[in-house]
């Protein structure tokens, strides 16, 4: 990867069971990660075919700093989302980034469809298509165990797999990565399922000698110290992301009971502090991260008499506690852990599943769906009821359950109740109701994720987060994150990796980029994503803000619909202007840039 003359792209065709290794010089200016990924997606995607057409690609991509700098640990997946029908982008950590790097691939592109279930074994020497018929139908945990025992490479590999949710093409099925991380959002698991792809093992056991033994270790140390000296350790290693639960509750920003409220009377009970004191048994780190933010809580359960107990270690986070706790009116840590366990074993996205359950509860209470359709009654806080519903979503028991398996937006379109569906840009919301930043940010963000542009953070940091400055900051933030996502830096360390630090880090591994050129790249990716979304049918003018977002107090009081629409218009003007510009990554002068 050093002094890169090309980007190594491994193409895998599941239909023909053939592979092809491309050394792409033309991709070098796109740096890696989301940059090379979006370029590859543009090339391979088939806008005219639906999400599950066998020709649709799945792209995994890493950057040149992967694993060799602190907290540069993620892999980005790009695809056509079965949930929104448009841009699918999801990030995951643990061992996959390291395994891809030391197997020698910058990007992996999977297309086609296997006739019978397969899993892939990928190493630097070979790609094997292996029979996965015996694994089809098994949950993510059992599949992981069997693949772990069957295949080599312990410690240097990553094991991806789907559960029954992906096999059954549920639109919000995720892909499990090494048990505790996921390509959770936007339905990559369903795409795996549609291709008959049960799992993928990447084994990276190559060595890679360090060419610059002076500058690289120096820059590494500098960044390492920065990482350890910021509040990263405190916030992400100490209590973890669930430290947010209590503070969001106090600032009227914690979506509760399907966003009918924004504070939760059991916030203390399900807070990060309480989880740490009573449930936390260990912490894990992604390969190459000194922080270690993955928090594992013990879930002890009685399964029979007399005193028959089992336990499992469940990874918990702010988003999961919100989606399966406050959002469903559940105030028990054990109940939350038991729901996380079931949902992840089936291979569903916890956030989307939780938000859908919230909508189902209110739709049932309002009489939009019946007891017959549901198979039982349901109320907020009813953990056993929620387990029943989750199982039936997986089984696809009746027409109702088949419908809701396409996500909350689709369910609300079918049965009514769009006003109280906590969905923005067809995507179930993340755990914040902070203000216009989050509302607009998730709506306009390229993948409709709170992480596209960090609107929830702007709500908390800007003096007046309701004007043009908010719009400009959302756009700037998304462009900068595009740069960070080219390297697939963990966004928890985004403040450490400012543009100047990235320039330095790249230079120490032989890659010359100025911060201006990086920003051009971020801007170019911003434009490319919008252009691709348009091809896939996205239109800003069709965005809707469900009424519920204006009925529940935020950090800044009640939001106004008119104001949100005004901000959206400003955003559209800005985005249009940016899309009208042409930025050529090779151009050196402004005139050259305009000429392309």
């Amino acid at each position, binding site marked *: 990867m050093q002094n890169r003359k090309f980007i190594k792209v491994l193409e895998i065709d599941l239909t023909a069971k053939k592979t092809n290794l491309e050394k792409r010089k033309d991709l070098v200016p796109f740096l890696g990660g989301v940059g090379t990924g979006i370029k590859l997606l543009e090339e391979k995607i088939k806008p005219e075919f639906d999400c599950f057409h066998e020709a649709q690609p799945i792209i995994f991509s890493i950057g040149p700093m992967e694993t*060799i700098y602190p907290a540069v640990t993620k892999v980005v997946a790009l695809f056509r989302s079965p949930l929104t029908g448009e841009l699918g982008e999801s990030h995951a950590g643990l061992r996959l980034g390291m395994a891809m790097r*030391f197997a020698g691939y910058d990007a992996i592109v999977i297309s086609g469809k296997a006739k019978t279930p397969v899993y892939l074994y990928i190493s630097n020497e070979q790609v094997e298509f292996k029979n996965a018929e015996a694994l089809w139908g098994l949950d993510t945990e059992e599949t*992981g165990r069997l693949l772990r025992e069957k295949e080599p490479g312990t410690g*240097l590999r990553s094991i991806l797999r789907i559960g029954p949710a992906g096999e059954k093409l549920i639109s919000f099925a995720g892909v499990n990565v090494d048990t505790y991380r996921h390509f959770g959002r936007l339905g990559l698991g369903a795409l795996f399922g549609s291709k008959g792809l049960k799992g993928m093992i990447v084994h990276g056991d190559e060595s890679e*000698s*360090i060419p610059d033994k002076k500058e690289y*270790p120096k820059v590494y140390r500098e960044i390492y110290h920065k990482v350890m000296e910021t509040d990263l350790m405190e916030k992400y290693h100490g209590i973890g992301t669930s430290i947010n639960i209590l503070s969001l509750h106090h600032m009227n920003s914690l979506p509760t009971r399907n966003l009918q409220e924004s504070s939760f009377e059991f916030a203390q009970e399900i807070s990060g502090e309480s989880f740490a004191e009573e449930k936390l048994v260990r*912490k894990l780190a992604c*390969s190459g991260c000194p922080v270690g933010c993955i928090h594992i809580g013990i879930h002890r359960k009685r399964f029979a008499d007399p005193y028959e107990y089992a336990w499992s270690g469940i990874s918990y986070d702010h988003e999961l506690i919100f989606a399966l706790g406050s959002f469903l009116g559940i105030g028990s840590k054990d109940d939350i852990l038991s729901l996380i366990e079931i949902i992840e074993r089936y291979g569903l996205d916890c956030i989307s599943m939780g938000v859908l359950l919230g909508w189902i509860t209110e739709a049932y209470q309002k009489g939009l769906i019946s007891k017959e359709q549901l198979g039982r009654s349901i109320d907020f806080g009813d953990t056993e009821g929620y387990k029943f519903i989750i199982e039936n979503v997986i089984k696809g028991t009746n027409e109702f359950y088949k419908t809701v398996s396409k996500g909350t937006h689709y369910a609300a379109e079918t049965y009514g109740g769009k006003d109280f569906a906590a969905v923005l840009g067809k995507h179930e919301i993340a755990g914040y109701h902070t203000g216009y930043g989050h509302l607009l940010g998730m709506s306009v963000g390229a993948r409709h994720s709170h992480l596209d542009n960090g609107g929830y953070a702007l709500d908390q940091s800007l003096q007046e987060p309701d004007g043009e400055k908010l719009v400009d900051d959302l756009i700037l933030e998304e462009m900068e994150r595009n740069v960070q996502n080219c390297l697939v830096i963990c966004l928890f360390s985004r403040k450490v990796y400012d543009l100047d630090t990235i320039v330095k880090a790249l230079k120490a591994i032989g890659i010359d980029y100025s911060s201006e050129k990086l920003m051009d790249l971020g801007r170019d990716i911003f434009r490319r994503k919008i252009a691709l979304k348009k091809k896939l049918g996205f239109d800003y003018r069709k965005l809707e803000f469900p009424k519920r977002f204006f009925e529940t107090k935020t950090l800044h009081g009640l939001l106004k619909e008119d104001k949100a629409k005004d901000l959206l218009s400003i955003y559209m003007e800005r985005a249009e202007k940016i899309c009208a510009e042409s930025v050529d990554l090779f151009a050196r002068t402004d005139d050259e840039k305009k000429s392309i």
Partner: protein
Amino acid sequence: MLACARTVHGDYSPVKSAIQIRSSGGLQGKFVADICRGCIHPPCAQACATGALTARKGGGVGLHREKCIGCKKCIDACLVGAIRFDQREGIPIICIQCGACTKNCPHGVLRMEVSSYAE
């Protein structure tokens, strides 16, 4: 592992690390560290027929690359499984007792100590 590879063995890859951190039984299992114990009377050096591994003052061993024939007897001899083989170079990856791993452990898990058998 990355610190060992980076600072001692000049490589980005954890393949080149003398310390092994691994899980026993998947990530749901326990984490274990295979660490060179820095024996005062090292069985790996005793097993070495060519004199490539020699006992180091204060514990542990030194590797004389030119004498190593890649027979892997040291690997079998190590009771705690702390030696791995570098396939490409054809030599074992030996801990030099430098403590780089302890300096890069931010969570207080690893530390250097003087052997209780040291003179």
